[in-house]
């Protein structure tokens, strides 16, 4: 993994989550903005997938368990789409909180992935 890109993902995911929490408190239905924040988080995760596939071939090999890493990455990639489906089915403001939960979880998971890649096994 690339360290600065990890932090970009964590920060973006946390901000995305906060936007959705605010939207819930403002009693807004899930809209382009809140679903959009999830989409941004997802795009970064897909970029992370490319980075993870390429990195070992350019001298950035993981120190930790790659299977565990990919379980985290694939699970994380599943979250934003699932939360988006939720938001489309359940048109209440509470879906914004579900979107927020998804993004916060992604933030934690990306951080954990970074730990597995760089710290675990050292």
């Amino acid at each position: 993994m690339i360290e600065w890109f990890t932090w970009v993902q964590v920060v973006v995911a946390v901000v995305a989550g906060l936007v959705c929490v605010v939207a819930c408190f403002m009693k807004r239905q899930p809209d382009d903005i809140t679903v959009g924040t999830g989409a941004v988080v997802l795009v970064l995760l897909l970029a992370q997938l490319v980075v993870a596939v390429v990195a070992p071939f350019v001298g950035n090999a993981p120190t930790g368990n790659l299977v565990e890493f990919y379980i985290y990455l694939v699970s994380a990639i599943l979250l934003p789409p699932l939360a988006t489906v939720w938001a489309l089915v359940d048109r209440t403001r509470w879906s914004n909180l579900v979107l927020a939960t998804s993004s916060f979880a992604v933030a934690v998971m990306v951080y954990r992935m970074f730990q597995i890649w760089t710290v675990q096994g050292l």
Partner: protein
Amino acid sequence: MVTQKSTRAVGLGRVLIAVYALLALAATGRSVFQISTQFGEAPLAYTLSALSAVVYIVATVALIGRGQGWYAVAWATISFELAGVLIIGLVTVLDPELFPHDTVWSFFGRGYGFVPLVLPVLGILWLRRQGRLTASGRGGAAGGDVVGDGDVAAGGASSATDAGTTR
């Protein structure tokens, strides 16, 4: 509307279900990894991981499901989770040697931000509330009734206009 299908899955309860689904995913992911790569190291701890993952999945489904059957299943699974996190949490604190390998419940769910400890408590509070609604006859009415109640309890000022809608 689709969103009124389930009387127990309302308002904050929906968020609770989402978090349960997330924890089910987390527990399943960890369990699959542990069992597929290092089951021999700690069969007990990893069997427990798998069991907890299954229980979280069943609890998630039970919270979504309607009727007394699912209600009972929700009670059973959520009580089991609370007992699990308390017992395993206590054991790992008192005698870490007994469970040297992490489970979702180790140290009261520390590895998961104590979500496994908080969630069953919230789940039980939620089920108690649902039980009261049903007992007082209000929960047995149309789903819209309960939707309105959910919004009031959550601090929304919109119950009157929103009862019967999906907001």
